[in-house]
């Protein structure tokens, strides 16, 4: 048996390859380094600073004009400024006086500054410590003559407690199969870059990461979070079997791609995709999605250091809308809060960020954030069919206020002579129990409801979905949840608007049958789930779905519902 360690899978997929330790240990080189006199050491440090800055500059230039590389370029630019920082330079010089060796001095000076950042309360600054250590290491490597890790024929899986963003950014995409991080942060720069490249990624492995050695063969499962070190032939066979099954299923699902999503008695349901970036649309279309039911606009706001302006947002939304080719593209306005703070929002830490200052609550207070976003979406609407979806609404007043802002955005656009669409639907994400209960009233004001089950389940059941000791309570078939969902869909139908769903539940084929029975019009999910939901819907009649729903709504317990559905379907 191979050793197995487990972390948190954050980017799905199975990958195999040889481990390349990325948090490269310089100890061996440092021990053997023979320093000369102080003046020469200072010169060496200075020379290395210049070389590293030049190399970074070259890197940045190769990224220019490539939009998908913009985040990486910005990170590199920050590193370049740090490398050339006069304060760091002075610290290095005085450290050389103290320790006598240039590479040691560089590492110590960078470490001292990293510590300063680490002790700052702001999470953003604390995260800059990694960047500083990265910068120090780069300069030290240059002095020591250590080459950047070389990649052979096969693909590698990068592994390190924290991986310097420059390491991932500096490697060609087709040479990296996956990423393993000992640290737990899903907002690390390394994860953002891995996500943009769709690399299976596992974080939060902790100290167990020391069991993994450079050059080890591993298999990683980015869904389960499993890492198999030095797999045996048996392990390989079982994973090859898994990969084969994945491929077979994929091939089978591919045959469904162009078939319509209709029940046996002709009721249509639209299946759409949840995306985080306009770059995801093409991939989603390959699974047969009919538009985008949830564009998480946070992606546009994350991994950067200032507010994206109207133009930048417009470009991202326009591209997504265009790629939907006339199908609907629902753009959710910024859904960010204290749990994933952005440096430029300055949200103070909260005891309870999920019940705190987040999403529309921020948007309504921060016109400087909200108006450019609304204007950008309205303008993108010219290029297809866009919709605005507002998250975390709890009452009618909030929605009315949003509508006022939209009017103001239109007036500004008209005044500025910019083209915008007047046919952009405006709806809300029903994800708070308050909104679900009030849907009969809200339905008079909105163009659509989209049920966000991840939060709706969490808030309705008062169960934190991240807490493993109460995970058994988290169940979207809980009758309380089903009642709120049914109420929402009924309110929509009675008021002549459409209701959809964009949470995890929409990707559960069993749930899809119940939702079909309730009369849902649209289901939006991560694209790879589309085929299995489509297959289920195509196998059943709406009459049968209604019968099953009627039985389920008589049940008293979520687990009973689940067991029943697995039995009859």
């Amino acid at each position, binding site marked *: 048996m191979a050793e197995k360690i487990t972390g948190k899978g954050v980017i799905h997929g199975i990958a195999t390859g040889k481990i390349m330790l990325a948090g490269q240990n310089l100890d061996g080189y440092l021990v053997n380094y023979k320093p000369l006199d102080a003046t020469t050491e200072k010169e060496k440090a200075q020379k290395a600073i210049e070389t590293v800055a030049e190399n970074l500059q070259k890197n940045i230039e190769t990224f220019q004009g490539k939009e998908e590389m913009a985040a990486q370029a910005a990170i590199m630019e920050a590193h370049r400024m*740090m490398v050339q*920082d006069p*304060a760091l330079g002075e610290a290095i010089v005085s450290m050389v006086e103290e320790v006598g060796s240039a590479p040691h001095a560089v590492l110590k000076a960078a470490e001292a500054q990293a510590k300063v*950042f680490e002790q700052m309360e702001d999470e953003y600054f604390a995260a800059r410590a990694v960047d500083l250590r990265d910068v120090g290491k780069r300069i030290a490597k240059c002095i020591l003559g250590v080459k950047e890790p070389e990649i052979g024929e096969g693909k590698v899986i990068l592994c390190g407690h924290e991986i310097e963003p420059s390491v991932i950014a500096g490697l060609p995409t087709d040479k990296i199969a996956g990423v393993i991080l000992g640290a737990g942060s899903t907002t690390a720069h390394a994860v953002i870059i891995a996500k943009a490249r769709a690399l299976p990624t596992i974080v939060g492995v902790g100290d167990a990461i020391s069991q993994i050695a450079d050059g080890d063969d591993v298999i990683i499962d980015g869904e389960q979070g499993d890492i198999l070190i030095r797999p045996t032939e048996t392990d390989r066979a079982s994973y090859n079997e898994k990969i084969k099954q994945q491929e077979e299923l994929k091939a089978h699902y591919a045959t469904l791609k162009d078939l319509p999503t209709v029940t046996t008695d002709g009721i249509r349901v639209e299946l759409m995709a949840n995306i985080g970036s306009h770059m995801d649309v093409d991939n989603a279309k390959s699974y047969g999605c009919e538009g985008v039911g949830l564009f998480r606009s946070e992606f546009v706001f994350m991994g950067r*250091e200032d507010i994206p302006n109207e133009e930048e947002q417009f470009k991202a939304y326009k591209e997504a809308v265009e790629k939907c080719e006339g199908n609907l593209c629902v753009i959710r306005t910024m859904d960010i809060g204290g749990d994933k703070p952005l440096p430029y929002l*300055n949200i103070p830490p909260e005891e309870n960020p999920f019940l705190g200052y987040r999403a529309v609550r921020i948007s309504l207070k921060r016109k400087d954030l909200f108006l450019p976003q609304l204007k950008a979406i309205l303008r993108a609407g010219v290029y297809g069919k866009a919709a605005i979806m507002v998250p975390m609404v709890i009452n009618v007043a909030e929605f009315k206020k949003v509508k006022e802002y939209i009017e103001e955005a239109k007036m500004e656009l008209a005044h500025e002579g910019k083209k915008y669409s007047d046919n952009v639907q405006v709806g809300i994400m029903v994800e708070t129990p308050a909104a679900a209960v009030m849907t009969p009233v809200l339905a008079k004001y909105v163009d659509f409801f989209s049920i966000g089950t991840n939060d709706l389940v969490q808030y309705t059941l008062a169960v934190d979905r991240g807490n493993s000791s109460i995970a058994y309570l988290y169940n979207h078939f809980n009758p309380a949840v089903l009642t709120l969902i049914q109420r929402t869909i009924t309110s929509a139908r009675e008021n002549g608007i459409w209701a959809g769903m964009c949470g995890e539940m929409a990707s559960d084929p069993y749930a899809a049958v119940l939702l079909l029975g309730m009369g849902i019009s649209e289901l939006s999910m991560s694209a790879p789930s589309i085929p299995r939901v489509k297959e289920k819907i195509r196998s059943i009649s709406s009459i049968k779905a209604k019968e099953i729903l009627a039985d389920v709504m008589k049940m008293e317990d979520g687990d009973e519902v689940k067991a029943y559905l697995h039995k009859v379907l």
Partner: protein
Amino acid sequence: MTEETLTIENKTGIHARPASIFVQTASKFKSKVQIKAKGKTVDAKSILMIMSMGLVKGTEITICADGPDEADAVAALKELVESKFGEE
């Protein structure tokens, strides 16, 4: 020696982006440029030093320059702070 005392007015304070503009501007001048705030004095040509001061909105800072182009340096940086770095 020329100096000028100002208050940071832009909402996000001197965070990463404003700090990098500030440093780039300060670096254009030959004079030694410093920022005094919260009882500390740091090199205004160092993004690390400026960022580690945590200059939020409402902080009072003194910009001082010493050298051949000190008046121009202080004027340019004053304008930058007063223009809120082009932010709100």
